[in-house]
């Protein structure tokens, strides 16, 4: 009985980490955009969905093999992100918060509509880059795809950390985000850097989309709930901290599965699957109220 419960527990932890990896990737995208442009991008989930559909269309309609399609999708997403920033975000960036919110929401609605319009709302199947093998580790089922997802999330945060810390572009990105005026004075092309931030975020979103689709099925609305979990992850980890986003994502994934696990064993028996999204909302509220800077973020200091 105890052993069975323990296996069950480990199973929930593993699948929590797997879905947490997805939340972490999208949360990373949100964090990068927020860090570089101070915008919370409500269209991030739809951008990821669009990327996943592009990969699917290349593979299914144009019979590309997986990895070239994967790479091409990342390139398209990257330049698409830069394009979106230049054409749509930059004109309103300096305006009121409300304008930015509405523009990113307009983008969300338009991209969602475009996906349905182009590829219909029918759910599709996108293959996993890591194959369909399933390992049995002492009774706990671990899918290769899940291991791959977590590894990719951790790998990307290391790469990003290196990019920000050790490269000139990374330094320029940080400078443009922290103090655009002075960065411009020392020769940083601030608007290019902001565009680059959007490009990177779109690329990360693309990875998240292509890794989400194999587990939940490719569907125009597949990222809607993921976006909320990723918001929660980004807020929990600290909205400006890339490492925080990954930690937050994994924590949220595990935490929600823990609640399911405990409710099966009689604790928190009020918890049902329908309450997953409301729980994410509660986490967002609780973090913003108790520790607005998140676990790993720095408190925001406002000059009056």
């Amino acid at each position, binding site marked *: 009985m105890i052993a069975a419960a323990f296996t069950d527990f480990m199973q929930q932890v593993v699948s929590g980490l797997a879905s947490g990896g997805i939340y972490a990737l999208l949360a990373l995208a949100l964090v990068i955009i927020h860090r570089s442009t101070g915008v*919370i991008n409500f269209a991030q989930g739809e951008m990821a969905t669009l990327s996943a559909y592009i990969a699917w269309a290349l593979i299914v309609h144009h019979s590309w093999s997986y990895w070239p399609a994967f790479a091409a999708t990342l390139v398209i997403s990257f330049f698409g992100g830069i394009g979106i920033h230049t054409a*749509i975000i930059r*004109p309103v960036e300096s305006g009121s918060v409300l304008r930015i*919110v509405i523009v990113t929401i307009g983008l969300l*609605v338009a991209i969602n*509509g475009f*996906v349905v319009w182009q590829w219909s709302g029918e759910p599709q199947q996108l293959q996993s880059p890591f194959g369909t093998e399933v390992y049995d580790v002492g009774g706990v089922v671990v899918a290769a795809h899940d291991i791959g997802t977590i590894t990719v999330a951790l790998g990307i945060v290391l790469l990003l950390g290196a990019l920000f810390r050790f490269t000139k572009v990374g330094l320029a990105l940080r400078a443009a985000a922290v103090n655009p005026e002075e960065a411009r004075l020392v020769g940083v092309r601030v608007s290019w850097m902001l565009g680059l931030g959007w490009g990177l975020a779109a690329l990360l979103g693309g990875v998240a989309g292509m890794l989400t689709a194999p587990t939940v099925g490719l569907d125009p609305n597949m990222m809607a709930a993921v976006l*909320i979990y990723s918001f929660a992850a980004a807020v929990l980890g600290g909205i400006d901290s890339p490492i925080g986003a990954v930690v937050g994502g994994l924590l949220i994934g595990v935490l929600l599965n823990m609640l399911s696990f405990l409710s099966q064993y009689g604790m928190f028996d009020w918890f049902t699957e*329908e309450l997953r999204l409301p729980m*994410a909302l509660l986490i967002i509220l609780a973090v913003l109220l108790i520790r607005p800077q998140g676990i790993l973020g720095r408190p925001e200091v406002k000059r009056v």
Partner: protein
Amino acid sequence: MTPREQRIFGFAVFAAFVVFVFVLPQFISDFRARDYAYVGIYLIALLGLNILTGYTGQISLGHGAFMAIGGYTTAILMAGNEQFGGPVPSGMQDIWTLPIAGLVAGLFGLAFGLPALRLSGLYLALATFAVAVAMPSTVKRFEEYTGGGEGIQLFGLPELTGSNAVAPADPNAPATFELLGLTFTQNDWMYYLAWSIALGAFAGAWLILRGRTGRAFRAVRDSETAAVSSGVSLARYKTLAFGISAAYAGVAGGLFAIASAFVNPDTFPVALSIFLLVGIVVGGLGGLSGLVVGAIFVAFLPLWAQGQDLGSLLPDSVIQGDTVSIPILGDFLFKGTSAPGGPAIVYGIVLILLMFVLPNGVGGLFRRIGQVITNRRYSRSK
């Protein structure tokens, strides 16, 4: 214009608008009256949201959730939830549920206003967005109160005013019923009910905003620091704004439930919350009269984006049965916009373009035109 003249002018315009609203059903078909009833309902919700966002500076992307609270309050009081195993018996007449819907939603608003005190700008947008997204699954979780995903059916209930309407001798004419010695069709009744409350809500919002409270709201919006140092209590006025705003949304939600004669979690989707925010931005933040345009935008743009004819915006007598079809973005895209997803593309693009072209909404445009006219007057008199 002196302030006094301005006020008299304002009253005159409002009176003219009231008259217009009350005679409009004479000129439009019975069917259209229901479309315009929804405009009135949206106007109520927009008035509330504008008190919060336009006047107090607190963004809410979750007002659809407050409408849902009002809608469910109304539906539960009318139909009861004993059939799902809940405690509330049926039997309250629809219009009497509306004040309770407003009250319940208002209390939820006050409760949400407390944590929201610590959030500002984008974070508040994010938290309220999460509220809107989480609402449908919360409704489904508490099935014994809300009927879960099936929702609550109100159609044909005796509690629904006008459900006893009888068909007249002429088979083409709509069914009518008597109330207070007047004869209504169901659609006309809905129109008059929605607009009576909307006009009352408009006057109420004007009264709230013109005095001390409104001044405090605007002070909070313009600079929290300055407001505090002038003795305005941030906590008090921000939660108050949330409460009032949610109460407006609750009444609108209750009316929405009555007008649709049905509620389920999809009656109040995330898109509704988005539409409402868009409505006040189009109508112009921090102004009341532009909101009528905002409400028309909220009610008709989704239809228009579906490639519907413009006729649904105009009185029948104007187009006399001919449909005026407007091709959207041309037909250069081979699929056309009536394919699934097409309307959403148009809607999203219109939203983005609006933010580029009219950052202060239609209300801002009105104000700017007004400024140009008054400036000219002043410069002439010099």
